């Protein structure tokens, strides 16, 4: 199909502004991705999938400058015993990073893999992204596969003793970073990946996750607190039999964030939980777009998304559960809720179910609401000041999403950030 002229022009302009990194064993994947971008064209305003979120600033050839945010607090996971891998404006920084060796896991830079002829990542890089292009196109992810300057390949073969923490640092107000990570979890292996920090003025990130039978992966990321960032992230996950994938994302501030998650349950008895909590104030647009495909028997999926919005902030949720023919005993759950702290903020939601099997349980719900006045009065009548009572109820609203995190220490760290955000707005 021919692309509309506007789309063609915009796509060509963006492609012209980028240059293909050295390919090595990933060269073919990058080339194929370029073709995908050319065929699909970059997202435009009139695309149905971008109905609620304007893609222009994410696709433009030129990056919009964004002020570097100076935080008055230590980075999120600094207190944790972890293996730290640092990217500054999207470039791996060896000095700031820990040694990459850790028992039970093999870690390599994508930039290093590109100079090798053989590497396991070759079979994953761009593969899940390409699968994820149907039935809905995700051109920014293909663009990422083609042009990612850096990233990390993590091969989990055992049970590493500590989490791997990808720490992003934003230092240049005109930075335009494209990062691509690939993660393969072998049978019986289990790991936790943490991500945090403002990455760049514009950030395009793609993470492909392949979990073998009985493998387990926990992913917790914290986006923010930078106000001016524009980010498009994609998570592609493929799950084998009895495998588990749990992902939680905290998003604090940001002019524009689009987080897509594309999950395929391909082996029986697999479990995927994708959760997110975001808090936005003023110039804030946050979009969670999730697509979960059940293509095996007796799998469980949960989508739990909560958004707290104030001062004209916008939240978007597009979530789909697709149950393929034969995917019997599917247990699919999806909830998306927003708490609007004033009349100027808005929440746009498009929950979807598409089911081709008869023996399934799928439920979805989406709500928009304000603070419960009855509950607020009850708390105040016990002496809790109105600001504190409002914060308590706001945290309570977010709880269902935050509780998706299994690890207590991580949960506490996330809650502390949310409390901080709320208390700065009293």
């Amino acid at each position: 199909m021919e692309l509309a002229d506007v789309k063609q022009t915009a796509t060509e302009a963006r492609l012209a502004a980028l240059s293909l990194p050295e390919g090595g064993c990933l060269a073919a994947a990058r080339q194929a991705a370029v073709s995908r971008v050319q065929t699909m064209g970059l997202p435009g305003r009139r695309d149905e999938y971008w109905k609620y979120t304007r893609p222009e600033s994410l696709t433009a050839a030129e990056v919009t400058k964004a002020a570097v945010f100076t935080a008055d607090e230590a980075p999120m996971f600094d207190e944790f015993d972890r293996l730290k891998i640092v990217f500054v404006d999207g470039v791996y920084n060896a000095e700031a990073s820990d040694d990459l060796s850790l028992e039970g896991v093999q870690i390599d830079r994508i930039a290093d893999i590109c100079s090798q002829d053989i590497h396991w990542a070759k079979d994953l890089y761009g593969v899940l992204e390409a699968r994820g292009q149907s039935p809905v196109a995700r051109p920014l992810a293909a663009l990422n596969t083609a042009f990612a300057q850096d990233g990390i390949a993590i091969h989990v073969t055992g049970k590493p003793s500590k989490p791997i923490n990808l720490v992003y640092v934003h230092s240049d107000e005109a930075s335009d970073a494209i990062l691509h990570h690939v993660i393969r979890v072998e049978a019986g292996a289990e790991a936790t990946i943490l991500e945090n920090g403002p990455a760049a003025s514009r950030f395009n990130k793609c993470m492909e996750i392949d979990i073998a039978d009985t493998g387990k992966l926990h992913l917790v990321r914290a986006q923010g607190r930078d106000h001016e960032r524009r980010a498009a992230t994609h998570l592609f996950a493929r799950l084998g039999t009895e495998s588990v994938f749990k992902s939680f994302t905290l998003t604090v501030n940001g002019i524009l964030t689009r987080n897509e998650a594309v999950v395929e349950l391909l082996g029986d008895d697999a479990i995927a939980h994708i959760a997110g909590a975001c808090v936005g104030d003023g110039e804030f647009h946050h979009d969670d777009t999730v697509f979960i495909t059940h293509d095996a028997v007796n799998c469980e999926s949960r989508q739990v998304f909560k958004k707290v919005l104030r001062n004209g902030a916008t939240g978007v949720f597009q979530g789909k559960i697709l149950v393929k023919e034969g995917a019997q005993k599917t247990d699919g759950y999806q909830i998306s809720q927003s708490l609007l702290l004033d009349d100027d903020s808005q929440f746009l939601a498009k929950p979807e179910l598409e089911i081709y099997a008869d023996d399934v349980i799928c439920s979805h719900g989406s709500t928009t609401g304000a603070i419960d006045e009855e509950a607020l009065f009850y708390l105040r009548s016990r002496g809790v000041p109105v600001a504190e009572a409002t914060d308590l109820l706001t945290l309570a609203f977010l709880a269902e999403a935050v509780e998706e995190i299994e690890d207590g220490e991580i949960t506490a760290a996330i809650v502390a950030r949310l409390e901080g955000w709320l208390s700065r707005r009293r």
Partner: protein
Amino acid sequence: MLEIKNLHVKLEDEDKQILNGLDLTVEAGKVHAIMGPNGSGKSTLSYVLSGRDGYEVTDGSATLAGEDLLDLDPEERAALGVFLAFQYPVEIPGVGNMTFLRTAVNSQRKARGEEELSAAEFLKTIRAKAKELKIDADMLKRPVNVGFSGGEKKRNEILQMAMLEPKMCILDETDSGLDVDAMKLVAEGVNALRDEGRGFLVITHYQRLLDHIKPDVVHILAGGKIVKTGGPELAMEVENNGYAGILAEVS
């Protein structure tokens, strides 16, 4: 302790007058009961005293130990010592009962310039008081009132009262929905708090709660004002003859 004079209250959004010149004084150390037919304004009185939105005071005053209550926020009234045991305690998913109580106790202490209770002190106190009310550890951990039975909710109200040690306790139909055993438990909880420095306003539709919490004074509220005041025998009269007799007598 609590002094209400000529209180007139209407609904904020509607042209509906609910209280029409209510006068009432509750002395420290005394238990006053208010009885009245459904819809007579009993809950409205309790809400207006505790500061709930939606009501407009068009005339009259209410003071606690000389301090004007009506201009204060609910939390300020609470810090002064007003406590309302709700007719319908509110469920708050996501907020742990224990967290809630600790925040409440310490907020009030802070507002009064007192030192906050440490986690250990708080735990010790709440465990002892919860035990007296047969509230188990699980109920303390659960979200506020969520999944509680009617009786558990009412016991939880009394636990809050015991922890907050208010000066003026207002109980709005605390007996409703309770079986005899639960009512005894709640009454024991209330009686344990009876103290020279503390006033009680026990609102009830039926006399039976007053068998367990012996009132000093009984008032009949009808049509938005106190129409009759007497001793405990007045409650018996309601029990035996219903409200109709008394209302006919005063009109």
